[in-house]
């Protein structure tokens, strides 16, 4: 059994946010498979940056109310 299946099996042991974590793991294993650890780190950074951008926009909206 390869690392993908092994980790997936481990993730199954925890029911909390299972669907989200499996989806996230798929994006991690895909980016790792295609671009290695660096590409996988970039994929996670991209996902975080997406949230960060929206967060900053919402924050700027609130800041303008002060």
């Amino acid at each position, binding site marked *: 059994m390869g690392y993908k299946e092994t980790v997936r099996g*481990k993730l199954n042991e925890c029911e909390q946010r299972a669907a989200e974590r499996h989806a996230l793991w798929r994006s991690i294993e895909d980016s790792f498979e295609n671009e290695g650890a660096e590409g996988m780190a970039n994929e996670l950074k991209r996902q975080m940056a997406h949230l960060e951008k929206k967060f900053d926009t919402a924050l700027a909206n609130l800041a303008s109310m002060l």
Partner: protein
Amino acid sequence: MFELARLKVRRFRGFVDEEEFVFDQPVVLLYGENHRGKSSTLNALEWCLFGDQCFGAKTGIRERVDWEIPNRYVPGDVTVTAEFNGPDGRYTIRRDHVAAGRRGAGTVTVVLPDETKLHGDEAQHQLYQLFRSSFQEFMTTVYQHQEAIRSILTQEPRQRNEAIDRLLGLSEYRELLGGIDKAQLEKTEKALEGKFENLRQRAEQSIRTYNNLIGEEKSKAIAAGIPEQDLNQQEALRRAKEIGDAVERLAQDLGLADFQLTIPQAYDEIAEFREWVKTEADQLWAKAPDVVKQENLAREQQDLASPKGNYESARAAVTKAQGERDELVREHGDETALITIADKQRGKTKELEQRIRQTNDRANLVGEAIQYLKTASLGGAVQRCPLCGTEVPDLLAHLESEWEERIKKEVEQLDDQRKTHKSELERVESLTKELKALETNLDATRAAADQSVQEIGAALGRDIGKEEDPGALVNARLKQIASELEAVRQAIEEKRPRIGALHDELAQLRTIDEIVRYERKRAAVERIWETTEFAELSALRDQTSELVEDVRAIRDSIAAVSREEAQERVAAAGAAVDGYFCRLANHPAIPGLLMGVTEDTRSGLNSYVFKSKDGTDPTPILSQGDLNCLALSLFLGLAEAMGETQPFAFMMLDDPTQSLGSEMKLQLVSVLEGIGDRRRLIISTADTEFKDLLMANITKSKALYNFLDWTEQGGPQITRPS
């Protein structure tokens, strides 16, 4: 199980023309100096079987990160062909890589014993079906990489743990964990939390600032006599209406009938109303007839000041010029008198000059007569006077001297007189010139005075007759203006309190307005946590935390399975590893080696613990050779643990004796002799001593490939002695 029978390599890395290796003996040695192509031969088989799985960062092998498949010196299509003898016949696996591109998986072809050819995905699937082995398993149980030994030869625990993870085939987990750590999501989450906290603090600061501003404005309001209960929107609207009414009344009183005003009906209109009233009130005031008249009079007063000053200055200049001219005439006479004096002096000078010339002429005549007498017989030493006949020595010389003295004196007297008259003439001519200049100046000042009179006329708006006094006319008008200005000033002063009161009312309205506005802003900030924008921000905070938490959970899962697999493999291979280590290292202070796996509490990565069977920690006494033995023991132990499940009937060792001493090399040969009973061995080495030991001590038949040289254009030069 599958035996490797033959390997053909063309254009792979350092290879140029096709080289063929035949593995027809139980032991095949690849021997030669470093950089001759030995490792590339083994790598070629690996690439043939696993394609792009065997290079790149995910392998955990630093040397494989920028691995180049094609020969960089002699371009061309890469082909590696491996022939295996399987249970049911010969299998041929061929992997090709076209010249374009430096890296890549290439295309794979599998030829089955019945000559069926499979390509692409079908061939790839067939490979997996045949060997059921991953690159990681191949690397840990079939092909001992020289890098695996090199990296374990370190005393730094983190690097050694990484090397053992690789030996156990767990590099992917370690790479995954490293990638997750590199993303630094928790750091970003912390930064976002910092920004959120900053917003919260700014909001609190904002509320404090508005409280201060409201307090200050309320103090001002109370000081201005505004009751505290009036500091609200309704009162602001009521006051705005009062101000509007007052402005309208003022406009009517000022005679401005066309004035129109809009009274605010809602609080939000007050700020604009205030600005409008402030501007309009000033404009109303500016348009009031008394104010306009005051401005006109002031302007006329200012317009007269300049001509009046000019006129007075011009008059003073005329008086001064006239005085200077009159004084000169009084002292020296007018121009006619001065001309008469000059003419007289000029005549006298000429007369004296005439007399000087006549005197000089007579002197010349007498001088010539004396010269004549000197030459006409009167030139002897004793001469006689022509008048008395007396003999006189040097009579003519005496007469000449006396005559010259007399003439000289006479001419000098005449010249003195001439100089006196000439000097007087010059003085008179200078006075005449001075008089003319004074008269010219006098004319100029009179012209300026006339000009200033015209200016006064223009300022007064009338002609000024010759019989009139311009200065008096100006003074009379200025007096009249002053009187009218005083009257207007009194009229304005009577109305000024109304405009002043209007401004006071506006100031109070502004104060109430400011307080109400600050209170509204403060309320808006206080309600910020109830807005949809804040709800959105909170949701994003939650999503961020969930992402970090999910990644953390995945990270924990990866670390856990990595550790579980490590424990399983160590447990399965532990006895074999111990056995091999004891044989290879033959360490007198380490009777046996126990290996365990724990979690590095800081990084969550696998941490390997070694204990001697006597309970002591062997790590501090492990030499480089011992670590080399440990790496070999792990590989050989894991390979042994595979037992009959191992699909490959051969083992490849690449440079296994990097730090081994002679005794350890001999032990390794002994171990390999045993393994050779079960699996064929392909051993690559640059170590002559080890090669000789193998050749001398391995009892099975051996084939030797000598890697003699390597050139860019020719590739490796390989021979196989018969």
